[in-house]
């Protein structure tokens, strides 16, 4: 039983649906949306610790969404998810304050490990303040 709250943002419906099922089966508190706008909307009303954010999305893309999130909810840790090994967008994400970036396809355990690390950092930073 993990005690962090996750949000997954990805436009690939099959991916989103499956990963949500698997995380819920692991008793993780998780929600999913399929666009940047919806993610921002969700953040308005819900508390989120770690967010998995796809870079390439129609409409508002990951980088843009990240920029907005960091403006509104800087405490939320974001892990970028990219479809291709674009170091460039990864670095750009990190510069904008993302915790890390992960390339698709990624094993769920690997992803969860990153989520845990991100959550730890969030805890440390919150403890400090």
């Amino acid at each position: 039983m993990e005690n962090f709250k996750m949000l997954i943002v990805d436009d690939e419906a099959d991916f989103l649906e499956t990963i949500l099922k698997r995380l819920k089966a692991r008793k993780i508190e998780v929600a999913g949306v399929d666009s940047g706008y919806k993610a921002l909307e969700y953040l308005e009303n819900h508390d989120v610790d770690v967010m998995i954010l796809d870079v390439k999305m129609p409409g508002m893309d990951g980088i843009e969404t990240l920029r907005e999130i960091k403006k509104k909810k800087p405490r939320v840790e974001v892990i970028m998810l990219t479809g291709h090994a674009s170091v460039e967008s990864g670095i750009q994400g990190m510069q904008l304050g993302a915790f890390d970036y992960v390339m698709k396809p990624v094993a769920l355990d690997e992803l969860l490990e990153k989520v845990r690390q991100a959550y730890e950092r969030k805890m440390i930073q919150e403890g400090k303040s």
Partner: protein
Amino acid sequence: MEAKQYRKLWWNLILTTLSFSLVPLFLLGGVIYHQFSVSYTARIMDDMKTRAVNRCSSIDLFLDERISQLTSLANTQTLDQLKNEDYLGRVFNIIQTRSKSFLDLGVIDESGNHLAYVGPYYSVLKQVNYKDEQWFHEVMATGIFVSDVFLGFRKIPHFIIAVMVREKNRNWILRATIDSDVIDNIVHLAWIGKKGDAFLINRDNILQTTPRFGGKVMGPPEAPDFANATRNLAEEMDFQGHKVLYATGIVRVKKWVLVVQEDPTEQLTPILQARFLLLSICFGGLLLIILGAFATTRAMMTELMQMDRVRAASDEVAMQSSKMAALGKMAAGIAHEINNPLAVIGEKAGWIKDLLKMDLADPENFQELSEAVNKIEYHVVRAKTVTHRLLGFARRMEPVEERISINTVLDESIDFLENEARYRNIDIQTNYAPDLPLTSTDQSQLQQVFLNIINNGIDAIGKDGEITISTKTNSRQSDIIVEITDNGPGIPKDVLQKIFDPFFTTKEVGKGTGLGLSISYSIMEKLGGRIMVASEEGRGTTFTIYLPVR
């Protein structure tokens, strides 16, 4: 460039250089020669005219003197005095001391009888009656008579001067024979150089003096007929196939014509020398110019060929690097398109693993399992289409001509970029002519052009926009026309002129090679077509691609 084109350029350069150098050279040479020859000939002619006039004046002076001698003699002496042959002989001797030109002297009465005679032919001439002679009538009518030259009994050329004297109620004539040697000597002074000639003719074109060349006294001259000349003239004439310079003068007293004759080859030698010199200079100049033209053209052609080779090599490199850039861009897109289905497959597999740990007899779990397997199959197919498309493109990287449908090539190109466009919220609309003819061309190169232009459209729009792709043929069905229009910001006029230049780019450093459109342009030229661009700032840009139907 091909050898034939080089050859043509070479000829153009040589001919241009030669004509621009040789025309002024020959023009200058010609003008100088003509000017010199005209003024020199005019001077020679003038000179000849002056000589003719001088000689005529001398002859006139001589004749005038002789006439006045006779006239004064006749008018100071009476007939009775002169009838006396002893007296006449004394008078003759006095005249002779001053001038040897008088050969004899005779006194003739009005009926033509010789009253007195002094001279070497006394026995012959004393008896002669002149009343039927032509000259006798003339002198009786006009008072003074000068004859043409004749040989007479003496067999030497001479002429006579006769003056009539009126004494009270009778008329008588004093007649003198003049040795025409003196006239000859005067005329001979006009023999200039080695070939110059001068002679006198009477009004019947009979020689009055001995010419230097050809013809004898009392015979016709070997020259054109100047017997009717009335003025002092000089001109060049053809005589028996030769060019000869002639000048004429008129002897006032006797209306004889003095003809001065010159050989132009002698008189105009300076002109010929000048001509030779000019021709030599022109010929030398010609040689120099030809040599120079060949040398510079050769140097230029070598330089040009060298530059062409370097450019061809760099074109090759640019082409290759653009191909690599296109490949790189495509690889990134393809990785994304494959990794997405892979991610789904991965998740589904993970989900199946999770389910396997649960109770599969539960129909809900079984349903999940079955659904997950279906999804895996679906995403495998999705990834497969991507890799197959890539394989198709890779296969077509080799240049080949095949009969292709432009609409299909456009569709494939759009497939490559559809995701990119979707992420950027760009709508790609197509408006194809359904009956577009097939054409033989290189599909992969054409696809590269389409990808480049559509990609540029996407980049130009950035986000949220529309790209319209339409195909049609021109009215003669000879060209396929593809129009790719974006509603991006458009291209400013000053930039529009440069978009086909190699290495010109408006994209950030590292984002574009600046080669896409330049390569596309050269590809279309190679395929026999062309690209045109029209753009309006704020409205968008249209690229129009013309491809011949073959």
